[in-house]
Every structure is written in C-alpha cells, then in structure tokens.
C-alpha cells in the first residue's frame, strides 16, 4: 500500500533521513517512534508526498509518488491522505468548525453535507462546544482534537498523524487515539502515527523505530511487532504481573 525505499533527505548539513525503508500494508496501523530529531516528521512528510526525498522511492498503491509533479501530488493528497500536523496548524482566521469544513469543500462536497460531517466529527472528538471558536481561543489539546477531526472528516485512505496527542493529558489522548484507530479500522484506512509516547505506540499493530534517520526495527510487517513479539511474551507477561502486584 505504502512503501519507502532507502529514502535520503537532508536539510543543509543535517541529514534527517539516511536510507530509511518501510513498508506499510493496507488497513495497517503503525507507530513511528524514535528520539527527538531522528527524522520521524520528515519520514511522515515524505510518505505523505508533502516533501520530496533527495534519493530513494516512495510508492503509494504501487505508484511512484516522489516523481509526480506538484499538482498530481496535491490531488493525491486531497483524495487519499489526511494529515494531522505536529503543531496543529489550523487556519487562524477560521472557526474550528470552518477549519474542518474547508478541506471537504475543497474536495468538492456541498456546504450542508460538509457542515454535518464536520459537526459529527467535532462531537466524536469531544470538541463540539468549541465549534464556533477560533484557534487562538482554543487550548492546545482542543486545537489538536480539531486538527484530528479535520484530517478524519474527509475519510482518507491513509491517515498521517504527527504527535496527535502531544498536548493532551492521558485520558484525552486515549480518546483521540481511540477515535483515530477506530476511524481507521472502520473504513479500513491505513494509519501512520508518529509518537514518542509508548502508550500511544501500543495502539498500533507495529512499531517502526527510527534512529538517526534509519529504520532500526519494524521496517516491514514481518519484522516488527506481533510476529516476533511471541518469544518475549512470557518475559513480558511476568514483568507485567510483577508490576501489578508490586
């Protein structure tokens, strides 16, 4: 479904991606983890066709994405991808509701229908009360939830979320992750979440671990997560039990 081969991307002298390869299947939920500055956001932006890698290939549904021109990639993003950016990134002049509606309108949906969809998503993310407020009047957590609503409302085939719970307390984060994963499973969409919260990563089927711009674990479904988790199962179980009775 989504594949990256030996991506390389640098900004000036810093190398953000240094030969990263990943493969993500349809309907899979993956977490991209790694220390700060390890290239998680950059990888996400490359996969979403927002930026172009200097070397390597990005494939979406078998089609090269990195060689497409800007217009084609824009169309692809609009029709297939939903993105939650690391810093929320709402349009400050629009109300929360209008921020969610806007991409739907740009996608060619009618005003009434878009408004209804936006309302129901705001409701699901528990920010219906803020529908008429502008981003400057929202808290960090509310902003993030509106941004998630915006990404989900268009029912994309792939959802990219960069630290979607960064500004949330653990219960609100749980709720947002629940909606993200739920929405993805419901529509068989693929979800790629960048996070450095292990509890968020635990929502994913698999973890893609980045380190200095390289993938150190979980590059493909076979190498990460559940598949090789089995041998460690007993140890983990024992440790968890130890934790509880402590």
């Amino acid at each position, binding site marked *: 479904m989504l594949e990256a081969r030996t991506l390389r991307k640098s900004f000036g002298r810093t190398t953000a991606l240094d030969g990263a390869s990943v493969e993500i299947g349809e309907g899979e939920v993956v977490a991209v983890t790694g220390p700060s500055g390890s290239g998680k956001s950059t990888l996400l932006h490359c996969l979403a066709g927002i930026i172009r890698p200097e070397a390597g290939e990005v494939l979406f549904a078998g089609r090269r994405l990195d060689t497409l021109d800007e217009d084609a990639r824009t169309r692809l993003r609009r029709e297939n991808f939903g993105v939650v950016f690391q810093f929320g990134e709402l349009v400050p*002049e629009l109300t929360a509701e*209008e921020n969610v509606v806007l991409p739907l309108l740009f996608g060619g949906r009618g005003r009434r229908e878009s408004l209804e969809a936006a309302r129901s998503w705001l409701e699901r993310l528990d920010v219906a009360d803020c529908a008429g407020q502008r981003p400057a009047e929202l808290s960090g957590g509310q902003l993030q939830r509106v941004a998630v609503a915006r990404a989900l409302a268009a029912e994309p085939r792939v959802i990219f979320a960069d630290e979607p719970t960064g500004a949330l307390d653990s219960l609100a984060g749980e709720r947002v992750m629940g909606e993200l994963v739920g929405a993805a499973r419901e529509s068989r969409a693929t979800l790629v979440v960048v996070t450095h919260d292990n509890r968020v990563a635990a929502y994913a089927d698999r973890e893609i671990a980045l380190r200095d711009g390289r993938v150190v674990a979980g590059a493909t479904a076979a190498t990460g997560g559940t598949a090789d988790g089995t041998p460690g199962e007993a140890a983990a179980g024992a440790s968890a039990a130890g934790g509880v009775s402590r």
Partner: protein
Amino acid sequence: MITVVRMLARGRSRRERARGRLMAAGAALATVLLCAAAHLTAFRLDARRGALGILTEKEPRLMVALTLALLAVPAAAFIYQVSRLATATRERRLAALRLAGATPREVRLTGAAESGWSALAGGTLGAAVYLLAALVARWSLGDVVPVRPLLWTPVVLAAVVLGGALSGLRAGRHVVASPLGVVRRARPRGPRVRDLALVALGVGLLAAALAGKGRFLLGGKYGAAVAIAAGAVLLLFGLVLATAWLIRMAARRAGRGAAAPETLLAARMVEADPRAWARALSVVGLTVFFGSAVGAHQALTVFQSDLTAFQAASYALLYLALLTAMVTSAGALVAHQAEALLDHRRSFAVLAASGVPVPALGRVLTRQALVAALPVCVVSAVAGTGVVVLLLAELYARRPGALAVSVAGAAAMAGIGVLAAVLVARAARPILRRWVRPGELRAG
C-alpha cells in the same frame, strides 16, 4: 538594549528579513514622493514658459494646489501603510520578547529601533535617488526647478525615519499592555463607532451648508464655504476610518453565504483583519473618490463647446495627479499583498500540504481583493459623485445628460479601483506558488 536588537536582527528568519527590506523599499518610495511634493511647491510658477504657463493664472492655481494635495495624501498614506507593515507578526514577535522577560520599555524601544533602522536605510536610498532626479530635472528645465529647496531633503528624510520609529513604538503598544493578549489575540478589535460618527458629521455639515443656499448659520457666505470645506474633509477622513468597518461588514456577509471554499476562506481572512485592508484600500478609495469627483465636475463641461485651453490643461493635470495617486495606491496594495502573504504563509502552506491546489489558493487571494475592494470603491465613487452633484445641483439641473455621464465616470473609477486590487492579487500568485512549498511548514 542594542545587543538585543542586534541579536534579533541576526536571528531574523528569511521572512523577517524580507519584511525589513519591504519596509526599507516603502520608506524609499515615501521619501521620493514627499521630496517631490515639497519640491513642487517651490517651483517658480510665474516663469511664463510653454505649457507651464497655465500655472500662473488664478483659477488653475487652485487646481495645482489640489494636485499637490492629491500627491501628498497618498504619499502620507503610503508611508503609514508601509510603516505598519506586517504589524501582526511583528507584534507576536515582540510579545514573545515580553514573555521572555523584557520590560515594556525595552520592548517598545526594540520595536522602534527595528523599524527606525529599516526606515533610515530605505529613506537614505530614496533621498539619494530623488536628488539625482532633481538634478536631472534642473539640467533639462532650467530655473523653473529651484535648487535651494533641495536642502530640505534631510528634513524629509528625518521625518520618514521618525515616522518609522514612531510606528515601531506604536507597534509595541498592545504588547506592552499584555504580552499574552497579542500572542493569542482571539478576535480582532472591532472598528469603532467614532469612525462612523465622522461620516455622519461630515454629511451633516455639507447638507446644512447646502440647504442654506450659500448662507450658513454663522458667518454668512464665508461660513458656508468653511462648512462645506470642513464637511468634505470630515467626510473624507470619516470614510477612510469607516473603511475598516465597511470591509468587515462586507466580508462577514460574503463569508456567511459562501458556498465555495475559496470565498469562505477569503472572506474570513478579510474579516479577521479589516484594518490592514482598510489601510491599503484607503489610498485606493481616495483616488476613486477624487476621480469620481473630478469626473462629475468634468461631466458638466462635456456639453460645453467653449472649453478653454486652461481648463483642458488643468483637467489633464488633475488626471495626471490621479494617475500618480493610482500608481501609489497600487504600491500600497502591493505592500499590503506582500504583508498578507507573509502573514498567511503558514496557513497556505498547511492547506497546500493537505491537498488544496495552489490555483485554488490563488483564487483565495483574488477573492480577498474583491471582497475588500468592491465595497470601498463603490462607496467612494458614490461619495465622490454625490458631493459634487450636491454642490453643483443647480448646474446639474440645467444639464440633464451630465448626471448620467458622471455616474458612468464614477462606475468606471470604481471599476478601475477594484481592477487594480484584483490585478495586484493576481500578480502575487507566482510568489504564492513559490512560498507554499511544504518545506515552509517548519519555518515557524
């Protein structure tokens, strides 16, 4: 203190530097315009030479005075526009300083120093250019162009720098009050009722003076003249101030009924910052106002066969001034467009990243221009025509065709104004294309 300014200057991002350069360019242009205006008043008008001869007659002299005023008004508005450039972002930056522990005084001085430096750099360039141009004019026109007034150039330069620094001081005003208030300023302050009161007062004075048919409550004939002049001036300033209010209303209406996302976004963006648009469009509005007024006046002479050469020449001169004003307006619009782009860059980059095609974003720019310029130009045109028609109601009554001609002229002026705004917005599209590259997403 100086260290802080230097540090800020060094740490300024690409867009901050672009802002500084824009401001310097604005200061340069304003200096040139102001120098020209100051210099023109000193031209030797009694030197009977060719086409310039008309300036020695009494009636056209009035026209010349009006011309000079026309030149000076856009120049002043332009320097104001430029010095206020990108206040929103700058305020945010200064507020960050405040949060970092700077005292209110330091923040103000930092703002003043920043904009003062830009104004000095640009102003010096402008003064140099103007001196060069004046010398060339002297060389080609001889003693019509006096040399001594050029000594005033440093004064003009000082005024420009002072204006820049003062606007920097003013920019820190809100920040000083509350650092957080600006960082997360929720809704923009609404335009004040006072702005509308000025319009009402102006209209009232005009109406009272005109109703008296040349007689006024006080001072008889002269009183009426003074009342008419004061009413016109009040109306003019009121209109400029009310522009923000007008734009806000128009944008709100447009946003409410918008079906197209471009219109929705454009209307909301205009609604969020009507003052910036009002600043930029006040010059356009003035031009349209004067243009319509001149057009209405001229409409009376269209059916007149004995048009004197003097009259023809003064109309030509007026239109030349209008053209200059229009060019200045376009300059103000360009400056505003650049400012708006800088301020909205991040939003546009995010929208582009989430799949909004760049042409659609280009349409957002043009629709913003339409939403803001249309009401301003229409109101200005109506006001300009209205004032002249009311003043010369008797003449209009005698020439039935004149009204139609002046309405057509006003419509044309309004059209030109809107067109200028739209053209500037269209011209900004290549810049938009370059700036919304998703790489910009980071440069927060």
